């Protein structure tokens, strides 16, 4: 029996998380201490801490093992996701810089909560123990409940916050039930122990119930149909940068957690062991297979009729959860790699698209309706070109990164023999092009609003767009580095069983 607690070396491996925590505290302090006029400084404070965390992350990359008594892993998989979260958080903060001015909201607590959410995500990606994972998820979720309702005078924002809170708590309950069943079956909360204990063949209906509850709980978090009902309202009501952060960060973190739970904790029940359905052995990939198909199809069909940009992007993000699940269903190293590639690619294109929505928010204009984009190609050509690139990328048209992401997902499906799933996937991406192209039509072809005052772009937002466009194009034309990184990261999933501390 090992002694409880942390070793000193553990802190070294937790440095990125600690820096983010310190940043959050510093922001909260700054909010109180700084004079009212200087609050804009906090943007750069937050960014500085995120940058420092990224540097710290570079030091621990390449290591493999667990710290904190095997509750927390340090591996390529975690590093990949942490990098993704830091990028997403940084872009979110940059996006919020002017947005908060326009909304008249205080930046201090807002940035504090963004960093807290980031911290939660990082824990979700690295935890290899059900309790750790749950604490990470809860940290993220609570931060988001508040952030969604951050625009106090806005009724939409308040309504979204309540909805998100109620449904989110409900889903957490489901997840906890699933987790407690797993604990009851195995006597452990460590994913690796769960895996080895269950590999002995103890499954049965209770395990099937646990898996179903876990799937439902995670399904809420990744906004997969039929657990998606909260997404459109929350996306529409939340402050736009937060919508962006939820759709990218929260989704990626939930996928990380999902991968951890199912690939590290329940690898033996991939294809069978949970009973039978229609005479076929039932494994957890079956659930994700169904979720994937209905999410893709319903998400895309619902998005077709949306006239509000944020709602459209909400439904499209539901569809993207469906595409991502293809990688989970494939349940191969290539599938995991494809999901990682897609999540990284998705970060850039989705954040970029929301940055355009932020851009359209001006003093008197909410700017999230499709028709607000009319004639953008004349009013702000650079933004229109950027939006074009994001829309094409979301639709999966080369030479944008979205194509490389979809390509790797469909490749994974075909390799694993899920040809039907791949066909449904490609047909869905063809459908989705219809509504993505609609955005382009508004920007280029409709010119009713061309006479409206030009859209002014702040420097912070310009930076976000440059980063997002560069990410979307570079990863689309020359994705070599991303593929290599994702491959290396995916291969570490479930491999780290050596403790990195001095104790073992």
């Amino acid at each position, binding site marked *: 029996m090992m002694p409880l607690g942390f070793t000193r070396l553990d802190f070294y491996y937790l440095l990125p998380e600690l820096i983010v925590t310190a940043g959050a505290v510093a922001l909260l302090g700054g909010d109180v201490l700084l004079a009212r006029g200087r609050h804009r400084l906090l943007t750069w404070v937050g960014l500085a801490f995120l940058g420092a965390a990224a540097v710290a992350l570079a030091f621990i990359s390449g290591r493999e093992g667990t710290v904190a008594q095997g509750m927390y892993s340090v591996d390529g998989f975690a590093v990949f996701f942490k990098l993704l979260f830091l990028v997403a958080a940084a872009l979110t903060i940059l996006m919020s810089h002017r947005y908060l001015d326009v909304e008249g909201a205080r930046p201090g607590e807002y940035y504090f909560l963004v960093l807290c959410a980031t911290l939660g995500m990082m824990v979700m990606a690295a935890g290899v123990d059900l309790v750790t994972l749950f604490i990470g998820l809860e940290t993220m979720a609570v931060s988001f409940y508040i952030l969604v309702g951050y625009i106090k005078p806005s009724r939409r924002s308040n309504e979204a916050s309540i909805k998100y809170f109620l449904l989110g708590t409900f889903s957490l309950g489901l997840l906890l039930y699933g987790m407690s069943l797993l604990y009851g079956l195995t006597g452990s909360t460590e994913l690796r122990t769960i895996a080895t204990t269950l590999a002995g063949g103890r499954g049965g209906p209770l395990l099937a119930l646990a898996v179903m509850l876990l799937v439902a709980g995670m399904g809420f978090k990744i906004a997969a149909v039929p657990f998606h009902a909260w997404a459109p309202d929350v996306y529409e009501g939340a402050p736009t940068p937060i919508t962006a952060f939820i759709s990218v960060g929260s989704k990626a973190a939930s996928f990380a957690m999902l991968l951890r739970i199912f690939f590290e904790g329940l690898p033996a029940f991939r294809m069978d062991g949970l009973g039978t359905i229609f005479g076929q052995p039932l494994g957890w990939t079956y659930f994700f297979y169904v979720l994937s198909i209905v999410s893709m199809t319903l998400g895309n069909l619902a998005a077709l009729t949306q006239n509000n940009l944020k709602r459209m992007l909400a439904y499209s993000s539901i569809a993207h959860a469906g595409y991502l699940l293809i990688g989970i269903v494939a349940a191969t190293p290539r599938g995991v790699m494809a999901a990682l590639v897609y999540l990284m690619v998705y970060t850039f294109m989705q954040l970029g698209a929301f940055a355009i929505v932020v851009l359209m928010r001006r003093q008197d204009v909410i700017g999230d309706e499709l028709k607000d984009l009319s004639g953008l*190609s004349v009013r702000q050509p650079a933004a229109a070109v950027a939006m074009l690139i994001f829309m094409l990328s979301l639709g999966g048209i080369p030479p944008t990164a979205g194509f490389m992401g979809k390509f790797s997902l469909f490749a994974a499906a075909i390799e694993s023999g899920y040809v039907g799933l791949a066909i449904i996937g490609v047909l869905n991406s063809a459908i989705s092009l219809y509504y993505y*192209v609609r955005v382009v039509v508004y920007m280029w072809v409709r010119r009713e609003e061309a006479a409206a005052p030009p859209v002014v772009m702040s420097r912070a937002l310009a930076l976000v767009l440059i980063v997002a466009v560069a990410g979307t194009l570079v990863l689309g034309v020359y994705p070599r580095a991303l593929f290599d990184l994702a491959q290396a990261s995916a291969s570490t999933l479930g491999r780290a069983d050596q403790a990195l501390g001095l104790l073992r």
Partner: protein
Amino acid sequence: MTYHLLSIVLFTPLAGALVLLFVPRAQVDAIRWIANAFALAGFVVSLPLWNFDVQAAQWHFVEKAEWIPSIGATYYLGVDGFSILLILLTTLMGFISVLSSWEAITDRVKEYYIVLLVLQTGMLGAFMSLDFLLFFLFWEVMLVPMYFVIGIWGGGRRLYSAIKFFLYTLVGSVVMLLGILALYFYNHTVTGVYTFDVTQFQQLAVPFNIQRWVFLAFFLGFAIKVPMFPFHTWLPDAHTDAPTAGSVILAAVLLKMGTYGFIRFSLPILPEASHYFVPLIVWLSVIGIVYGALVALAQTDWKRLVAYSSVSHMGMVMLGMFALTPVALTGSIVQQLNHGISTGALFLIVGIVYERRHTREISDYGGLSKVMPVFAVVFLIMTLSSIGLPALNGFIGELLILAGVFVVNKLWAAVAASGIVLGAAYMLWLYQRTMFGTVDKPENAKLTDLNLREFATFAPLIALAVWIGIYPAPLLRRLDTSVARVITRVNSVYGPALAKSNCTTPTAPAITRPPAPTPGAPSLDLTGFAACADEAAPKKPGGK
């Protein structure tokens, strides 16, 4: 220089687009000059491709570099006689369409030329790629610029037509992507190597049940692009509503993507499935020939008529291809070039009068030959070329196709020939209604004839039409090894025969064939017509 020739040809238009990005949009004339200069440069740099080693069977001007090693995708360019001719057609038609837009496009000039030049790079890349993923990338890159060309600078129901074009082609190509992936993984299970190398795929012996599905996946992608009969409905809309340059590019080059795909990928990679699906494709082609011609007869819109004639002509191309004889395949390729030249020119012709009168109704014209004599001559030459009059290019292609098809199935040839008759009917009737008669509309009396720039767009096409019609030997010689490569791979009847026959004798008579055999003597031995030009050409199927 020569080593990176393909990359230079490929990226010259893109470089032009990048330069244009930094030109202020108010300087419209500067934008036009720069775009034309780059388009012309793109054509000029592609000319050295013409002088490749005709005898050699391997790929020419090959370039290979790492791209995404973790999945085995490479930046792999290479061409043979077939793709070289299509590349030259592309660079020429690209320049012509840029030149033809000088006065036609006045709105968003900068964006227009950027989009056109990007499209050019996409098309060239598709013809050059020997890596399947790279090919697919370029294939999809073409979609968006073309969507914009139709949707922004088009007329009529341009948005409807643009999205129809976009979604049709997209559905086809994403399904094709799955076919590519199936091959990719099959190749891995056989060889243990992950690669998208097309030359490697062309040597695979894929089991028939896989071949069949992959063929259908490819078929959907390529047949929509061609377009073959039931998938053609996007074409008349897209053509009618596109601006002139868009129609020219669409007809001359984009449609060739489909036929190129069949010849480069479907036939050599999936030979058994190609045989299996011959009846399906032949009958769809034959229906397309006759149906396209009949619908063209009924059109009252000048541009729509030409669009439907495209359906008919492309049916002819597909028929020649899937006769799977060397002669017919050669004819099919020649006819692809011819179609690019004559239909491209016909769309330019519609554009000329549309710019002046802003109507495409045939009944709004009449007697134009009196007010626009030079124009009338150009139109006549192109009409005759489209019909297939001897001494012009269309004749060579149609003759080779019919001769090649005839030896396989006389019924197919007979139905196809009736399409040619109908073709003569709708084209000559169109000519009569628009050019002859009296000038009964006062608007038509004031029309000006072609100016120098407009004539310059036609001059190279007329020269090519006459040259191919009278002396096609240089063209045919350049196709020998490509055709032999495909036929030996796809056709077990001709493959061994070709390998044995003329190749052993270095003085093969194939190269000195008569340019225009008399149509009255189809009984001469045509089966060995496009026999391999040297010993290296024929390979046993599946081996190297």
